[in-house]
């Protein structure tokens, strides 16, 4: 089931509903892997079969708990039809749809105007929820992407980066202390371009990040995620689409889950039939600190080319008692040892940051969070 029927419907009408609140009375408003259609599916797939004709009555039936809880209150707003003609080739995304419905505008900014090679983008300073950044310089641009809005509930946002040929950006994205944080990231990489994204998420109650990458030939994408989750449900999804030959991708997501929280990770490496010589790698690791926390990791490969190298893996572990004993036997108490082991667990993510100022920001945030 694709979004297209809904998009067609919206294009034929001038108005859609805006849905403005989330219901968090439910313990688990996010996806539930048990109700998904497992193979080749997104956890967030929508089902419009029954209700296309009744959308104005908000009779949209969805399998996804997230969007189900999102579509509660409604009001009528105008929609920019151009918005619906985004040339989006990625998977259906309830979050992207939510961002689109919430604020049906897309504003485009040019990153070429930045004079420095390291910059801060505070998305809360942009009035529009849906933002597209274009970058075409050959010099590498490093970006610290933050949301300084003190409001704990963030609106769903769509953030897109379009890289021209030979350009390169590095992004450190920080999500901290939000009750609700909903972000859909899209990265469109032209030939020979390069992106390195690191995302650090800590102390959020309900977080959902979706990362969509579209890779043309000879480009490379790297994403590393560190997620500290001690309440609620934190979701991370990635869709790495290799559209043309000779591109490479590296994904590593690590979650430290505590106090009965839940993390979900679903990531797919998708290789188009013409994307020969693709080199893709994906790894998701979770560290559970107690017996009541949960994680659901779902790595996926969908490959239509026959000359590619793709691998994926997933692990779930707890703190190793023998390691703890080793620390204790050197006089280091368990509390300090666990903190050191947590830092060690996500070190690989921090090490992926190449730009020094971004590295020092991430080190400070992680140290504060773990101290």
């Amino acid at each position: 089931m694709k979004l297209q029927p809904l998009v067609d419907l919206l294009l034929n009408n001038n108005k859609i509903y805006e849905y403005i609140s989330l219901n968090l009375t439910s313990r688990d408003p996010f996806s539930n892997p048990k109700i998904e259609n497992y193979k080749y599916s997104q956890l967030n797939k929508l089902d419009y079969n029954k209700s296309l004709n009744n959308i104005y009555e908000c009779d949209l039936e969805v399998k996804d708990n997230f969007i189900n809880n999102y579509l509660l209150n409604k009001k009528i707003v105008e929609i920019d039809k151009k918005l619906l003609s985004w040339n989006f080739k990625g998977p259906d995304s309830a979050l992207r749809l939510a961002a689109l419905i919430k604020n049906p505008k897309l504003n485009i900014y040019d990153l070429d105007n930045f004079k420095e090679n390291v910059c801060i983008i505070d998305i809360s300073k942009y009035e529009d929820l849906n933002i597209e950044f274009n970058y075409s310089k050959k010099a590498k641009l490093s970006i610290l992407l933050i949301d300084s809005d003190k409001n704990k509930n963030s609106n769903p946002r769509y953030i897109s980066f379009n890289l021209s040929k030979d350009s390169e950006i590095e992004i450190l994205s920080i999500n901290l202390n939000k009750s609700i944080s909903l972000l859909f990231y899209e990265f469109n990489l032209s030939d020979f371009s390069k992106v390195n994204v690191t995302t650090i998420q800590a102390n959020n109650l309900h977080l959902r990040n979706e990362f969509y990458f579209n890779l043309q030939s000879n480009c490379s994408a790297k994403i590393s995620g560190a997620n500290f989750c001690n309440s609620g449900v934190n979701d991370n999804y990635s869709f790495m689409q290799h559209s043309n030959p000779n591109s490479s991708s590296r994904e590593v997501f690590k979650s430290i889950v505590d106090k009965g929280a839940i993390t979900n990770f679903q990531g797919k490496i998708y290789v188009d039939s013409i994307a020969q010589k693709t080199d893709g790698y994906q790894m998701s690791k979770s560290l559970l600190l107690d017996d009541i926390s949960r994680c659901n990791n779902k790595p996926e490969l969908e490959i239509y080319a026959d000359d590619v190298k793709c691998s994926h893996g997933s692990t779930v572990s707890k703190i190793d008692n023998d390691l703890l004993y080793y620390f204790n036997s050197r006089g280091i108490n368990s509390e300090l040892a666990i903190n050191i082991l947590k830092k060690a667990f996500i070190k690989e993510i921090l090490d992926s940051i190449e730009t020094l100022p971004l590295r020092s920001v991430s080190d400070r945030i992680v140290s504060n969070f773990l101290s």
Partner: protein
Amino acid sequence: MLEIKDLKVSVDQKKILKGLSLKINKGEVHALMGPNGSGKSTLSYVLSGKDNYNIDEGSISFKNENLLNMDVDERANKGLFLAFQYPMEIPGVQTSFFLRTAINAKRKFLNLPELDALEFAKSLKTISEDLSIDPEILKRDLNLNYSGGEKKKQEILQLSMLNPDLAILDETDSGLDIDALRVVADGVNKFRSSDNAFLIITHYQRLLDYVKPDFVHIIADGNIVNSGDYSLAIELEEKGYEKMANV
């Protein structure tokens, strides 16, 4: 310094130590030799405080305090050190960082200020040079992808830096080539003094050729069955455990 009296220990209801007694004074080096499964490593784990070892009977006093009432980290900070037979690999934790954290944990326990970074670096350089440890290895993750010899040298480096009162070497000689064995033994000899004591657990005489013990004990079936001086180790090498354990 250490007094073990009539120690009976079981694991999963299986009796391992069956009334073992041993006394180690300051300045003494004791060697504990025995065949596989005799309870050597169990004794070292019980002394360091590892979980899942049930103390059925007996007592252990360390520096006139009840060792069995102390947590693992407390025992270490009070001066007990176990050099592991199989040191743990810790990905993501740099060797020098681990050492400094351990030293500062002990200093905090003793109400001393944290060790100055420069002082730590100097001391680490000197001791690691003595042990022929490549400085580059100290920047790597602790024990990760180290060779067997490097891991054992690392344990002796920790021993020397942490300056314990009682060091237990649990089969430190296993997996060492002759050169590494000599380096490790030199490290032990350099550290050995009238203020500290050693319990060296080993299968073979060869480490004792380099680190001469004051006492040698033979353990069999959970108990010390024979004690003597260094000559006992030589005799043991000639006759084997089966004969000597039945003496």
